[in-house]
């Protein structure tokens, strides 16, 4: 490295250490970025701001919670658990053998009382409890390719053990399809049967893009173990809405799936007679079956949780802000003027 003459250290040291702020007009934004001198805003947690923030949260969430709660309360819901009651008394001791025995008729007649006016459309759900559709082996036991394109040339090994039966491939393969729910419900009010609309219960996107129009059930539910419903081999999967609804696996062990819609209003004090076919075996694992009739609001079905939680959060915010206000008034700290720092650690 060159040394220029007998130079000693540079006498003219610059005034400040580092680069001085401002005063240089030629600095681009990139220069400022490199020198970490971008203009910054440094918010401080002053009591005013924080108390205001909590007040704001409270004032937003409490009305929101009230609105949500009201929406949820205005949904009318009838839930009826039928899996225990619909077993004839003779078989109450051994429900599993009852359900597995194909020769015993599984009809069940019940009546439901409507306690409040229900506006159409009224959604019919079947609710299953303690049913783990979110089990890992269960969830992966399907072949989306096969559902869309049919049984040719696709790898269906994830569908084991419901992949082949007697050497023939099963369409649709997998445990999810195999365990299709097969209880049916018919409704009679007064004299007339209530029409249940069983079309358009699945997601449109599923119907159009996930299940093929030309794929027909093959070799389905032919094995020794019957898991659920049988499928009509003449109807393509695209139109098998029950299957489509069932294949949309749920994340929770308690879930409801759409069965159909009633397009008429139900008045208060109406009595609806339900004819159930109690086919589905939930008795081997202690599951529960429930029939649900429900209206919907803008929030969906009946769910008080959101409303209650919003109110809870809002009110605790308000309480916090009041607490902080009291603290602030009591222990007023002087922020102006000099502050003293003591460095004794």
């Amino acid at each position, binding site marked *: 490295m060159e040394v220029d003459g007998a130079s000693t250290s540079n006498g003219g040291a610059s005034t400040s250490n580092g680069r001085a702020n401002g005063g240089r007009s030629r600095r681009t934004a990139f220069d400022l970025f490199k020198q970490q001198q971008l203009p910054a805003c440094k918010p401080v947690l002053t009591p005013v701001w924080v108390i205001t923030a909590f007040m704001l949260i409270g004032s937003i969430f409490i009305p929101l919670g009230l609105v949500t709660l009201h929406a949820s309360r205005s949904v009318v819901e009838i839930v009826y658990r039928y899996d225990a009651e619909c077993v004839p008394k003779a078989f109450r001791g051994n429900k599993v053998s009852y359900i597995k025995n194909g020769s015993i008729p599984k009809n069940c007649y019940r009546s439901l009382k409507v306690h409040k006016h229900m506006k159409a459309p009224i959604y019919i759900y079947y609710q299953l409890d303690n049913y783990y559709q979110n089990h*890992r082996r269960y969830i992966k036991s399907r072949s989306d390719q096969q559902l869309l394109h049919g049984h040719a040339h696709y790898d269906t090994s994830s569908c084991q053990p419901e992949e082949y039966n007697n050497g023939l491939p099963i369409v649709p393969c997998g445990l999810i399809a195999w365990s299709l729910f097969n209880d049916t419900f018919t409704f009679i009010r007064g004299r007339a049967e209530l029409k249940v609309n069983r079309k358009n219960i699945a997601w449109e996107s599923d119907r159009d893009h996930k299940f093929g129009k030309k794929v027909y059930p093959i070799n389905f539910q032919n094995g020794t173990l019957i898991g659920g419903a049988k499928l009509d081999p003449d109807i393509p999967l695209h139109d098998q809405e029950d299957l489509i609804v069932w294949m949309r696996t749920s994340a929770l062990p308690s*879930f409801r799936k759409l069965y159909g819609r009633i397009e008429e209003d139900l008045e208060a004090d109406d009595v609806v007679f339900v004819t159930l076919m109690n086919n589905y075996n939930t008795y081997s694992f202690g599951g529960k079956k429930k029939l649900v009739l429900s209206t919907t609001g803008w929030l969906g079905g009946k769910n008080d949780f959101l409303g209650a939680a919003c109110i809870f959060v809002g009110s605790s915010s308000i309480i916090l802000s009041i607490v902080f206000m009291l603290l602030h008034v009591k222990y007023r700290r002087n922020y102006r003027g000099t502050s003293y720092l003591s460095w004794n650690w």
Partner: protein
Amino acid sequence: MAICNTVVPIKSKSGAISYKAQSQDEDALVNAAARLHMVYANKNGNILEIRFHGLIIQYEILETLEFTSDRKRMSVVVKDCQNGKILLLSKGADEAILPCASAGQQTRTFVDAVEQYAQLGLRTLCLAWRELKENEYREWSFMFKEASSTLVDREWRIAEVCQRLEHNLEVLGVTAIEDRLQDGVPETIETLRKAGINFWMLTGDKQNTAIQIALSCNFISPEPKGQLLLIDGKTEDEVCRSLERVLLTMRSTFSQPKDVAFVVDGWALEIALRHHWEAFTELATLSRTAICCRVTPSQKAQLVELLKSCDYRTLAIGDGGNDVRMIQQADIGVGISGREGLQAARAADYSIGKFRFLKRLILVHGRYSYNRTAFLSQYSFYKSLLICFIQIFFSFISGVSGTSLFNSVSLMAYNVFYTSIPVLVSVLDKDLNEETVMQHPQILFYCQAGRLLNPSTFAGWFGRSLFHAIVVFVISINAYAYEKSEMEELSMVALSGCIWLQAFVVALETNSFTKLQHLAIWGNLIAFYIINWMFSALPSSGMYTIMFRLCRQPSYWITVFLIVAAGMGPILALKYFRYTYRPSKINILQQAERRGGPILSLGSIEPLQARTIEEDVSPLSITQPKNRNPVYEPLLSDSPNSTRRSFGSGTPFDFFQSQRLSSYSRNCKDN
């Protein structure tokens, strides 16, 4: 002066001669000789040309006996082309040359001169010469060549051979060189001392020179404020006794505010390091300032090692080739580039241009770096833990079968796209202004005590991630129950909740918001939606239409905002409470800074865990145990008196109350 060196003259176009020298000393000497009309004009191969008043004298260099730190001198054997005489010219430290002088010489005057110069803080060298006979030279040359080409123990053999020649010298005179201190050195030392960093000075100069230089830059204070303890001795016992005495004094004055420093010579240091390691180590831990003179590069490295073994964080700063070992040994090595070439700068972790930049390096950049690293590392754990906890909770309701709540695309994109961008810009975060930090260097204690990254802060982040996971999980599970409980939708709700929470967490932890921060935090949120919308538009993906469906549902937005409010509310409340009613020092400074009021510092610093910085002053290296900055360059101005005056008679160590501030501001005004 003109010949005995390793300088190469370079002729520029206009005829002026500039010199390329390995060290500033040689450069100075050659230039001084040139001023005295003995101009070193040219070097062709082995022939030197000296121009004396226009007359050209030629010398042939026969051998160069290089400078080693053991011999502490260098020599050249030259042949005068005019009359064929062979001369040995030597130049070196006074204690290396004067003992080799021929008997009968009046070395008294030279010793006095050297002492006088050292009192003034100048760097001294002695010059000597001898005439060699032809056959003596030839014999010796043969031995020298043999020694130079051995493969075993070369240095030792060469040293031995050189020893044979360098005796019976006739001392010519003594030179003194002034090595000016760089600007800003005293303030830097002062400020870093306040930050709790201890300074040691390691130098190759004489003891008196070093002490004078130290006094002139307020490294140590003169009596009666400061006390300088000497460790000297030639034999093991002497050193031991001296060491014991100093240790006793140190122990008794440790708690007092008196500024006690010790000085140790190269010889004594060698003995102490070899035989009295424990005692010296104890001394090292007790003292905040030390001066070590006549240290060799290997001793510098040894000292750094000693301090490292005492659990100190050491920083070594130097600017010459002899500092390289020390720089490499220390935890942090800083090289000053420029004065003596780039050797030190190349070997160092950090390379700065001037000594005073060290203040900024440590206080500003080092501190920011600590804050940012602490935040970044803990945040990374937090975001991963959040996802993990949610998965764990989900496994409890999925039969413990290992189902992942989130689909694989989301998980992959989570760490890369959704959560990394906001923290990338946290490297621009500044919790305190640079000016505030410079005014209150004591804030560095916070870093040294590890207040921002320790088990309890980590536990805080861990608890935060657990709390947030519970909030997200409970709210999503309950809000999206029964007919809404479809797997993909629920997973997307939970993921949205996580991402929103993290945006707010980063926003809460950021201290200064530049445009980039806003862009990164909020832009990241928007990017999350855009990416998911893109995936929701692909019919073949598992997420087909999920995001579109969700964004149309009011319950989705209510759920997300509820998650944010429930998750951030307690965090905000806790942070506010701590900030206002139990503020840490950083918080106090932040508040004061934003209000613009003046802040006064009270109290003395009692570091529990000081850090030392080792400073190196040119050929000196200063090692600082725990926060000692070892870089220091001696500053000698024209007259010693003026130097002392300008630095206010050295009262920077007058602590307590406002006095410190006023003395500090006085220092600032003077400079």
